[in-house]
């Protein structure tokens, strides 16, 4: 028994020794959801990081770039454990990824404590944009309330008088609803925060039918969307009450919707800060190479943000003299955000959240008949998170 322990101990010691002298590499730890049905999103993002890796030639400032992917299994506690593993065992220079606000909320403090720069590639937990903003936290996506605020604005323009709102009952779900409430001027006739495990909306759909709103607003990302949209049609509501969404229809699930012949989704409108048809050189190159890499599917904003995250890291390390361990210099360079973003010109606010445009986007068929999102109008221009002023950076 004692011998075995000694063996195990020396094996661990060797592993630690093996990673200690690796200063000629830039290590990026990436926490995503790679199993469970939510992996639809994680796999898109992984491909996004890999396209960025290819474009960088596997190098940053002449140093070898190493990406270490971890799976949070859609659970905050696992996300936190994996973050600890990346910090302590892999000794990564940067932490990024993070799809879910509740996973980010649990994991980011681990990175802050270790003095690492944490870049959220998707989760836009409102708290980090305001009071709990952190000098080492950057967001390469958006703040949760911004996209639904754009949707509220769009609904006002469309003269929608009353809506019924639905979202899953977790941090982001609540913030999405708060966002639409901030800008929508009509009446919110009903509000449902459904359990995370919810897959049958029979009760809620009956309530919507009885409430007769002008429109329905939903936030059902990942695997919730297909089930909800199917049931919306089965309940006889599609075509009767227009359905508006944020983050529920994108490149990650459109192929699946198309395969299931859910034609009622073509022409549907949502809002977002990016679109696969945005006209800039970086975006064209990214979309083309992503499609080559990933089953010829269009990237969703998830993959675009993943791409931006890694490009942002590369630019910051290069512009600060090439040493990823020099966190202060890297941070200052990152604040300048001088990199070719797929969303065109890119700028950080004081709280390290992007100040960016939000567009309305419509589901259309491309020239091959594949469903994709296309940009329509600019709803919010150079928009910063509402709670930015609460940040004391």
């Amino acid at each position: 028994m004692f011998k075995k322990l000694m063996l195990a101990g020396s094996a661990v010691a060797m592993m630690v020794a093996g990673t200690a002298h690796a200063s000629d590499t830039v290590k990026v730890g990436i926490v995503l959801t790679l199993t469970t049905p939510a992996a639809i999103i994680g796999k898109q993002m992984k491909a996004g990081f890999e396209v960025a890796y290819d474009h960088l030639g596997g190098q940053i400032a002449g140093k070898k770039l190493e990406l270490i992917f971890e799976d949070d299994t859609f659970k905050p506690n696992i996300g936190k454990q994996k973050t600890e593993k990346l910090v302590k065992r892999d000794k990564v220079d940067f932490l990024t990824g993070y799809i879910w606000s509740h996973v980010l909320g649990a994991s980011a403090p681990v990175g802050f404590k270790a003095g690492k720069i944490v870049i959220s590639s998707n989760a836009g937990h409102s708290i980090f944009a305001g009071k709990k903003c952190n000098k080492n936290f950057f967001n390469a996506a958006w703040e949760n309330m911004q996209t639904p605020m754009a949707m509220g604005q769009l609904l006002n323009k469309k003269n929608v008088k009353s809506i019924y709102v639905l979202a899953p009952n977790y941090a982001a779900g609540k913030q999405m609803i708060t966002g639409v409430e901030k800008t929508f001027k009509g009446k919110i006739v009903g509000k449902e925060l459904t359990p995370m495990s919810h897959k049958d909306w029979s009760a809620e759909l009956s309530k919507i039918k009885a409430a007769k709103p002008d429109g329905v607003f939903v936030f059902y990302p990942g695997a919730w969307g297909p089930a909800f949209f199917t049931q919306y049609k089965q309940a006889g509501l599609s075509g009767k009450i227009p359905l508006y969404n944020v983050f529920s229809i994108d490149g990650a699930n459109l192929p699946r919707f198309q395969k299931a012949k859910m034609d009622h989704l073509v022409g549907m409108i949502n809002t977002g800060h990016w679109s696969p048809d945005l006209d800039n050189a970086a975006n064209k190159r990214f979309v083309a190479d992503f499609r080559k890499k990933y089953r010829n599917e269009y990237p969703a904003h998830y993959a675009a943000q993943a791409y931006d995250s890694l490009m942002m890291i590369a630019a910051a390390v290069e512009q600060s003299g090439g040493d990823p361990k020099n966190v202060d210099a890297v941070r200052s360079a990152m604040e300048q955000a001088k990199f070719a973003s797929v969303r065109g010109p890119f700028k950080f606010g004081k709280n390290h959240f992007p100040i960016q445009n939000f567009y309305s986007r419509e589901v259309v068929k491309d020239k091959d008949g594949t469903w994709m999102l296309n940009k329509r109008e600019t709803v919010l221009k150079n928009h910063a998170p509402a709670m930015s002023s609460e940040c004391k950076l």
Partner: protein
Amino acid sequence: MTFALFVEQIINGLQLGIILFLVAAGLTLIFGIMDLVNLAHGTLYMFGAFFAATMVSITGSIVWGMILAIPLMLLAGVLLEVTILRTLYTRNHLDQVLATFGLILFFNELFLIAWGPEGTGIALPPWLSGSTKLGMGIELPDYRIVILVSGLIVAAMLYFLVAKTKIGMLIRAGASNREMVGALGVNIKLLYTAVFGIGAVMAGFAGMIITPITQAEAGMGEGFLILAFVVIVIGGIGSIRGAFYAAIITGLIDTLGRSFIDVVLLLVVESVTAETAGPAISSMLIYILMAIVLALKPNGLFPPRGA
């Protein structure tokens, strides 16, 4: 709140109850007769969903796909019983929990590899994807009516099997007194395999008919399994009658809770509190019911006779 909404929600609750019953019936039989805690029962529900989705895409017909998936379920159930679960009957409950939990992990991962994280689904043909007006403003999706009716038919068939046939007699005897049935020279091995097969088919059928609504994905059975356990605890372990009533009660309470708790709360508290407390309280309701039942009738509402 209108009358039509109330009726619709009752029917929605019945539909959830029927699905719950299909899963809980097998669970309660297996637990009651074989004394086996089968955590992997939710896995059988997932089997049904994926088998049906695959068969539907092969045959191109939702009816044929589901009919062909039923013998597959029976085969899967029997194979699982003969190869793995049979060795667990004599073990204690902790071993059973560990082994069947292992099965959950194994099959979830296997299905993820085979079908990918996005899973699969069954698209409803046009003749099933509309909705029907029943008068007085009540309108129900056609497919929900199909679920309700087919679930009731399967429940009736199970009732006939258990109450009127010889194998049913043995099953009832087994649920009341396992040792005595064995002592009387009944081929207990065969009986166990048959019971497990029936349970697998019913759970699989539930998974099949729910898939056009919720889609099929790896791990879909686990959330449902918890509800099924609540049902068999409320109904009385080993009692099919109990499972039926408890499933209907649970389905109704869950659905009506989700529908009307915020309305009720608004009568006593302000709207912000009602909005936050509503979802929390409605998801607790069935567990509260289970706690009350356990406190007042520890053997459940309808324990099997003689137990």
